[in-house]
Each structure stands twice: as C-alpha cells, then as structure tokens.
C-alpha cells in the first residue's frame, strides 16, 4: 500500500465516522439532560430514507439534510412527550420507536429504492487542503464531515464551559438541585432531547447523501449503526471528545476489516466484517473495568507503584452516567 492510498483510506474513515458522531453526540446531549432516546437506530434509517426522498424529489441537498433533522426531532419529541409529560418508561417507548421507525423506513422507502440521487460534493478547503498529510486527511472532505469536526468542539465547550451547559449537566445529575437554582428542568429536558434528536436525524442524510449515497432498503447496511452509536455514547462517558474518539475507533476498525481482507485469505470475510462489534464491546469492558471489585483485588496483589499507576489510569477512564438518567422529575 502506498502512503497516498493509506491517507485516502484514513480520510474515508473520518468521513465514515461523521454520521456516528452526529448520532452519538446528539444522544449525549439528550442523556446529559436525563432522557434516554433509544430510538436512534430507527431514527437514522427513517431520516436517511426521508432525507434521500426529499433530496431526490426536489433536487435540493440542503432540504434533504433538514428533512432528516426534522424526522429526528419529531421522533425525539414523541420520546420527550411520553417520558417527561406522560411519565412513561423511556426504555419501552424508545425501543418500540426504534423498531417502528426502521420498518417504516423500509416500507415508505420502497418507491425510492435504487434511484440515483444527488450526492453532497467534496469541498477541499483552499490553503488548508494543501498542507502535507493533514491536508488530504482532514481538509478534502465534504461539508458534513467538517460539520462533524465543529460539532465535537462546540458540544464539548457548550457542556463544560458555558453556564447553559452547566445547567444541562445539573439537570441530568440532580434535577432537584438544578430546580432550586432556577433551572426549568422539564423545559431543559425537552429542548436537549429534541436538539439531540435532530442531530441523530442528521446522521441519516449524512449516510444517504454522502457516506453511502442512495437508498437501498434493507441492504443499505445502516441497520445496527444506531445501536453502536448508543454504545459509543456510554463508552465515551457522555463527553463529546471521548465520544468522537469512540466513533473514529469504530470507523477505523471497519475500514481495517476491509483492507486486511485480501492479505488474510485464511479468515472468512464475515469474521472481519463482524469483528468491529465485539472489539467495541471489549473496549467498553476495558474502560469500565475499574468499577469492579475483583479488579481491585487483583490490583492489591501488585507492587505499590504499578498498582497506583494502573488504578489512576482506570479511574481516569471511568465515567459515571448522569445520576438521574431515565428518572422523571417531580417537583414537590
């Protein structure tokens, strides 16, 4: 393999991670406020189909993307209304929506199967794209991939560095305390659930208009991505930067599966295609291993210096979910 083809491949990894970043950061925002939107997998499919249908029908890429976001926002509105206002189980509602939206996408998407549609063009950024190595890697992408870079940084700054972001954290952590400090808990939850849903929705057109352009129904290869995005939200400890790292890792593993296939003829191709999923589970395990008692016991047998180092490493990786995740807020 030449350096150029490796660079091209890695650039492809960054682009392929963009929709996962949209979905996982959208979910991060919702969960930070205390609402689990489990519908992600179905939402992505329905938004991919819807965005593609709109873009094909009226030949407008921007409206296609907005349509996908609208689909995501509407599904999230159902989750928010049923869990915040009607106080129903977020898990049950979200799960049913995940299944329903997926089937709806396949059913409503029939007329658009296999149509050739518009595709978001790549847009090399002048000057920056000429930088050796970094240029071809980062700056010869399409607008959605650039948007994914921006989203990572903006979401991180928003959550950790701004007052509204601190309120968001507070609402998901301890709504009673946030309420005492003047936050409108339920309104905050509605807002971030819907905003997060719109970002999950954007993941759909990012696939159907860019990463895997077109709509091919059940063989689109999108089914399952939403569940991975949910796992990455947890793996990323509800922190946009770590979430992005998880998304890139997953996209990288998928790419390696494709690249390594010819050089490893002994291994069936299915194994390499499926490998990213168990590897993700393994990564999840390693990140959260510090929470278990047997690790503490094993660590206790190690020499002092090694134990301290490993313990510190594990603690820095450890992340606890927002304490009120999934719990409705009731004012006294």
């Amino acid at each position, binding site marked *: 393999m030449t350096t150029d083809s490796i660079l091209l491949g890695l650039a492809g990894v960054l682009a392929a991670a963009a929709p996962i970043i949209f979905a996982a950061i959208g979910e991060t925002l919702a969960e930070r406020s205390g609402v689990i939107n489990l519908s992600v997998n179905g939402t992505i499919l329905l938004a991919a189909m819807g965005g593609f249908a709109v873009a094909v029908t009226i030949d407008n890429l921007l409206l296609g993307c907005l349509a996908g976001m609208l689909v995501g926002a509407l599904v999230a509105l159902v989750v928010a209304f049923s869990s915040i206002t009607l106080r129903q189980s977020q898990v049950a509602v979200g799960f049913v929506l995940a299944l329903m939206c997926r089937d709806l996408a396949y059913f409503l998407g029939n007329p658009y199967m296999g149509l050739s549609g518009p595709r978001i063009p790549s847009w090399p950024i002048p000057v920056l794209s000429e930088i050796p190595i970094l240029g071809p890697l980062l700056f010869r992408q399409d607008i959605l991939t650039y948007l994914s870079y921006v989203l990572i940084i903006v979401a991180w700054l928003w959550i950790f560095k701004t007052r509204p972001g601190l309120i968001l954290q507070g609402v998901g952590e*301890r709504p009673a*305390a946030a309420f005492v400090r003047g936050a409108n808990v339920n309104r905050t939850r509605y807002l971030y659930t819907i905003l997060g849903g719109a970002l999950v929705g954007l993941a759909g057109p990012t696939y159907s208009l860019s990463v895997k352009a077109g709509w091919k129904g059940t063989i689109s290869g999108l089914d399952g991505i939403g569940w991975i995005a949910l796992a990455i939200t947890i793996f990323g400890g509800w922190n946009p930067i770590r979430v992005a790292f998880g998304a890139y890792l997953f996209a990288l593993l998928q790419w390696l599966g494709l690249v390594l296939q010819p050089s490893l003829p002994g291994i069936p191709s299915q194994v390499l295609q499926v490998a990213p999923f168990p590897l993700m589970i393994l990564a999840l395990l390693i990140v959260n291993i510090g929470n278990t008692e047997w690790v503490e016991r094993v660590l206790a047998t190690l020499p002092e210096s090694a134990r301290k180092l490993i313990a510190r490493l594990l603690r820095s990786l450890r992340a606890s979910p927002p304490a009120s995740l999934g719990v409705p807020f009731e004012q*006294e």
Partner: protein
Amino acid sequence: MHVELIGIHKYFGNVHASDDIHMTIPSGAIHAILGENGAGKSTLMKVLSGFIQADQGEIRLDGKPVIIHSPADAIHHGIGMLHQDPLDFPPMKVIDNFLVGSPGKPIPNRKNVIRSLEELQKEFDFTIDLNAYMDTLTVGERQQLEILRLLWLGAQVLILDEPTTGISAPQKVKLFDTLRILAGQGKTVIFVSHKLEDVESLCTKVSVLRRGKLVGEVEPPFDIDELVTMMFGKVVSLGKRAVVEQGQAILELKHFSVEDYRMRLSEVDLQVHAGEVIGLAGMEGSGQLLFLQTCAGIHRPITGQLMLNNQDLTGKSYHTFVNLGVRYVPASRMEEGLIPGLSLTEHFVLAGEQTKPFVDWAASEKTADERIVEFNIHGKPTTMVEDLSGGNQQRALLALLRTPLSLILMEHPTRGLDVESSIYIWSKLKERCRQGSAILFISADLDEILHYSDRILVFYSGKVSPPLNAMETTVDQLGQLIGGKGWPSTGSWQPAEAG
C-alpha cells in the same frame, strides 16, 4: 433582613401541617425552630424558601409583603436554604457546582469567580480546594460550600435544616462560628433542629412547634426541661445507663488490617463479648465504615484473623457471615435497608426463613401485625415502607432483624430521629444485648457514643485507638481524639494519654 410570617396555614390533605403560624425574626438573630419529627418545621421553612406556597397567610421581608414562587425566586428576595443533604452535584468540580444557575454571561470567567470565592472563603476561614471534585468532600465541607454559594448569590436570610446531622464535632464548631459571624454582619439565621444542645449553645431565640402549631417562644437562658416539655408535651431524658452483663467472646480480631484505595487500618486487636456495645467514633471517612463493613464480611481483611464464636471466618463470603448470625444495618434506610414499593408484610416475608415455594400470606400478615405492635411502628401490615416516617423506618429495620443474632453492626442507628425515637431504638438494641448479641455502631453523635457504648474505638485518618472505657471518657476527650489531638506521634499508644 427582618422576616415576618403572618398567619401561615398549610394543609396536606387532611393534615394541617402549618396552623396559623405567626413569627417575627429580626436581622442579626440566630433563631431556632425546634420540634420533633413531623412537627411542621420543614413545611414552614419550605413555605419561606419558596418550595411550596402557603394556603393562607403572608410573608413580609423588611416590612414589605412578598410572594415567593420558587426556591430560585426566594434567593432573588435574599432567602437561601441549606438542605440537610446539601443540594449540590457530587460528580462536578467545586467551581462548576458554584456556577450552575448563577447569573452572568453565557461563558463565565472562572478566574474572576475563583478569586472572589477565595476572598469569601477567607472571611470565614474556610479552606476548600475549589478545583476538587464534590464527591471527595465531606458533608461538612459541602455545607460550607452551600453557605458560601448562598452568600455569594446575595442571601440575607439563611435557613439551615438540621445542619449538624452527619458532620463531625470540629466541623460543628466551625459551622457555629460561621453562623455567629453572619449574625454579626446583620444577616438573619434560621436554625431548624431537634437537637437541644445545639439550640442551647447557639441560638438567640427559640420557637417551638408541635403538630403544626407554634406552642411557644423562649429566650435565653434556656431551661432545657421546659423546651423538652414544649416539644413533646411531656418530659423525656436519655435515662439511666443500661448495664448489661457480658458473656463469652463473640468477635475476635487478631492483627487485623483492612485497606481500600484511600487508607489502611493496621494491626487492630479487639475482643467483643456477648452483651457488649462498642461505639466507633471519628469524622466521616476516617475508616470506621471500612472497619464496620469488614466485620460484616463485605470486604476482606488484607492480613490478620477474624473469629466469630471461635470460628475462623477470615476471607469467607458475606453470605457465610449472614448465616452465622452477623447483621449489618446501613445508614441509608431507603437505599440499602428497605425496599421502596414493598409493604411491611412483604418485608417480613423476605427477611424470614424461606422454606416453602409459596408464601402463606395470612400467617405472614399476622406475624407482621405482632412485630408492628412489638416495635411500636406507626403503620399497618399493608403500609408501603416509603410512607413511614424516618423513626418508623428505623424501627421497621430493627424489627426485621432475626433472633438470635451474634453480632449487629449498625451505621448511624438514630441519625435524623427525634429524642423519643432514639431512646426507643436503643431500648430495643439493649434488649438484644441482654439476649446475647454484641453490637458495633458508628455515630457522629458523641453523646450517643458515650451514653450507649461500653467501649469506644476512635478513628482518625486511618489510625485506630485502643478500646477506651466509655465510663471514663468525657465528651471533650472524645472530641479532641476525633479531631486528631492527643494521639501519640510515634510508637505505641500510651494508656495514660487516653485518659
């Protein structure tokens, strides 16, 4: 700020929680609201701090009538409330915790905020690292932070709900100093409590509530007996020290060392006899909980031996400990002790011997009825545990302990309970001692430790004192040891220094 409550009424269903309360609290006062659990203290303070609205009546601040819509609204009016369990955000950093909900530009200038907070800290001699994480702080430190936060937001009236529960003796001294400084600055301090000694040593006036009514207001010097009579309608005292004859050794620790990631307790030797009560004293997080839980079989000692009734249990599972008659009663009643959503009967069924696959509900309800009467629980067999008051929950927890037991390990057995409930709980525990159980308990209440223990172990940042005879130890000595004074600097413990 001059606070007036005029004819406040509040109903919850049929319960008249606040019944025509009139109260005037001038600025510069440290005013106590005294009453037993359920007397209506919390309701009245929730009305004043905007959590709930009164059904009738008026609040005046500096003579002006105000309507307080929410807690956030209350702080705009200058009223801040410090809750018993500080309402903060444990996984956040101290500085971020301050900024949540604070007014200002969307992107706060952390440097400026830190500087102004450091200045405020100096005023009260607080030394909290503003970059630490909240969950590494003690309850006392979290309280200090809440006080700072409320002052920083401009509170002129500070309401403190049972602030001395769960904090150490030195932290209490610090808290009281702080409150006196605030009163000196002309702020109004309202101190909600059922602890007579705290009220006596701190407050400039006391309002006593009983069953929603204001039964009287008293100024110093306080007559404790009079206050008690007002609170309960009759006189109670801790009573005589119960003397229980001691039997054979139940628990034996030999060169016992335990460790978690924070600290290590080394080489503890202890023999506990049947009928004996051992109090574990120390600031929260000094190792006493680790010690207690290791005796319960939840953690394993790293070295040494743990013998129960002459049987070596070192490294055995929690299940084995339970089967051999060891019971651990945690402090968080609703989180670890009882199961919300289940009735009293269901709890007794779960705690009982399970031999048949189906539950005999008729018989179970009968047993539950008997226990409810025996333990004076205000509830029915069908009552859900979450609907019981704190004292009744604690009595239910005790009623759930099977007989006979060898060793009972309790964490804060009477925390948050009023005097009468505490006395009742201890009479039941002493009864257990007479039946041959040994008891180890943790408490932050020094009087409780001294009055009910036979011997005391003091914990101070991972160090353990030898057992002290409770009859020969004074509150002052105990308080100093807890605060780290009077410990030998090196080498072994000198019995003389233990007093």
